[in-house]
């Protein structure tokens, strides 16, 4: 014979009926209902909070620092530098990458959680740049090691160019089939 407690009193639903919800939403600034796809909303949020890894290789890293500093202020488009790959979702490869450094770049990329993006900043990271000819130590393009989403040309690119590259990446993220993509890693 069971002496268990009686089933709890059913909790009343906190979801407002539609006519009352409209009343509440009308009080919001601008008012009105927002109807959108979940995927679009998620992408909008992801694009507006790209957290790059603070990972400087060479000269371009100085321009990247300048882009984070007062005049250009990347914080205002939601780009906040992170010191560990575990918290980052964007890797800005800023500068030339030597063959000794290439496995480490690859490992850092592997340590970043999905979804992740790579921005190749400057000519050296894109194709070897001025170190293309007569050179035995520099990797001819970071895309031999990690998949690159956006290339920013320049030697070094101005901070404005880096910002343009990040805006391009945001455009790319906004139209991504985020919920419909295969789970497996890209590369």
């Amino acid at each position: 014979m069971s002496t268990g407690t009686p089933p709890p009193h059913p909790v009343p639903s906190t979801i407002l009926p539609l006519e009352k919800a409209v009343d509440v939403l009308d009080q919001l600034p601008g008012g009105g209902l927002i109807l959108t796809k979940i995927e679009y909303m998620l992408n909008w949020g992801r694009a507006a909070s790209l957290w790059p890894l603070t990972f400087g290789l060479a000269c371009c890293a100085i321009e990247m620092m300048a882009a984070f500093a007062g005049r250009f202020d990347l914080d205002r488009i939601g780009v906040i530098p992170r010191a560990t790959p575990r918290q980052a979702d964007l890797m800005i490869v800023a500068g030339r990458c030597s063959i000794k450094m290439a496995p480490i770049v690859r490992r850092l990329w592997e340590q970043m959680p999905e979804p992740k993006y790579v921005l190749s900043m400057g000519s050296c990271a894109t194709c070897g740049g001025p170190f293309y000819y007569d050179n035995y130590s520099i990797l001819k393009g970071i895309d031999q090691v990690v998949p690159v989403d956006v290339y920013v040309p320049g030697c070094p690119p101005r901070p404005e160019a880096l910002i343009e590259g990040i805006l391009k990446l945001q455009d790319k993220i906004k139209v991504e089939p985020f919920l419909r993509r295969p789970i497996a890693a890209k590369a």
Partner: protein
Amino acid sequence: MALRTEELLLNMGPQHPSTHGVLRLVVTLDGENIVDIQPDIGYLHSSVEKMMEYRTYLQNVALTDRGMDYLTALANEEGYLLAVEKLGGIEVPPRATWLRTIMLEFQRISSHLVWLGTWGIDLGATTVFLYCFRERERILDLFEQATGGRLHHVYFRPGGVYEDLPAGWTDRALEFCDEFPSHIQEYDDLLTGNPIFLARTQGVGILPRDVAIDMGASGPVARASGIPFDVRKAFPYEAYGQVEFDVPVLTDGDCYARYMVRMEEMRQSTRIIQQAIEHLPAGEIRSKVQVTVKLPRGETYARTESPRGDLGVYLVSTGDDMPYRVKIRAPSFSNLFALIEMMRGWKVADVIAILGSVDIVLSDVDR
């Protein structure tokens, strides 16, 4: 029963927010104390010395900007071109030497500002970074107006400079020089009297004078250890013999002394720029030099005072339009190995403070 203890090997870098580039430090720890530290370099080796052997003397100017110390592009150009001009007997017109002096000192200020800002971040004072980069952007604006580039200028050429100053440039430069001491005062207010900053820097990472000489340290690191040596005074080049400036020398040899030396150097650089603009003569900015300049057979060594220290370039020519061999004596390289002596015996948390105070650029170390 005694507790079994053993030394711990800690691997720091090459990706670490405080190593200022791609330096790897292998630290041997006994508890919290540093027993030994071994820098592992070569993660940014660009084989730039080899590349220079396949490029003409003019093309190499662009390579010195990028392949060597990227924070002080003009100082690299100066070191390389001094060697070229010395070997080739190329005359530099007086206006060009004064222009070079102005640019080199602006470069020194901008390099020290990057050092101060990043060191501030390392020590937990993030505000300083924003202040330093505010002033640095103004210097970069001046560079951009005069040379066309923010970071890599390719402004110095064999026998002079590329272009004359645009209209109104000297006024803007003087305006900056008038304001800049008040900005240094702002950094002083933020850091110099700050008890947290003092606790982390005063008496930390002492480099004794004799060790500094043994390890070949130069620049602000050596001057903070009581070595009154500055190439600008000892072997004056360009217009440094004709301007008045003091070389700050401190004897403590700790992180704080290195900080104070660099702060004073920025004030002195401002003084040099003001005098140079006042004395700036009119006339030619570049002597007639062929684009594919051929140097006579021979070898030479030129030394300059880059913001990081004694930058030497050894140049061998076989009479061709390309150098036979270029060897760069990088100041960061010697200063990096003086670091081992500074760090022994300190706590693991001091690694960041000491490393930042030496101000190394890995591009300069590895080349």
